[in-house]
């Protein structure tokens, strides 16, 4: 007996922001599991805040690997987290005006923190301070 082959789907839907947001959530989440947990284990468990100081950070950021690592984590975590906050806003804030305001705040936060975080991670030049420290010492 001939069976009819299952087939569903012919047309393609157009893309939407929510779709990309959803997909980004999953991808960034997966990466962050390694990045953030790695970071936490190194900075808070293996080393503790007792041991961490400016010099520790300076030494660490001598390596381009750790700079890339931290910047990627910063970027993903910030967008992942603020996107999560955006969903919470969508879920709980019903009046249109408040919702728009909350969205504006979140996007502003995202941009501002992305800039200051990037400045910190990417432009940090320990030698500048070491020179000062040496000169002063």
């Amino acid at each position, binding site marked *: 007996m001939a069976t009819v082959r299952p087939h569903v789907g012919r047309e393609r839907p157009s893309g939407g922001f929510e779709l990309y947001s959803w997909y980004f959530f999953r991808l960034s989440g997966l990466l962050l599991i390694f990045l953030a947990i790695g970071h936490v284990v190194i900075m*808070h468990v293996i080393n503790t805040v007792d041991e961490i100081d400016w010099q520790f950070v300076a030494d660490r950021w001598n390596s381009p690997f750790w700079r890339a690592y931290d910047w990627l984590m910063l970027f993903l975590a910030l967008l992942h987290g603020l996107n999560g906050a955006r969903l919470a806003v969508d879920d709980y804030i019903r009046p249109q005006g408040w919702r728009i305001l909350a969205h504006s705040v979140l996007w502003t936060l995202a941009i501002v923190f992305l800039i200051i975080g990037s400045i910190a991670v990417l432009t940090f030049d320990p030698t500048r301070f070491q020179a000062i420290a040496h000169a002063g010492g």
Partner: protein
Amino acid sequence: MTTETAREVRQVSSRGLGAYRGYRPPPGMISWALHRVTGLGVLLFLLLHIVDIFLVNYGPETFNELLFLYRHPVFRIGEIVLVAGLYYHAANGVRIILIDFWPQAYRYERQLFYGVIAVFLLAFVPTAILMIRAILV
């Protein structure tokens, strides 16, 4: 469908966050609520963390001075809570990704939730012991 009623009756509806009190939460709802709370908590810490890391650019004195804050006992406990939140968020995130992309996962929704709790405990208990020991030393 066609109700052209213009009666003066009081409108009562059960929308909004208040509805949460009216529903006895199944495990899935608990897992989602925890996911949201831990996510927002970690986001708050992240924002704080970006501010402090930005301060490395202001030199060792400024940065190291700030670290006193982090070494305060209250913050040390908060740090453990942060790690707990992060671990849970990560483990449950994996559960959600499994549900999203593994077509059979819905059959094991409950088991996956208990799995999340198990993974969380397995990871968190040793971490917590290490961190508490570090505080006590």
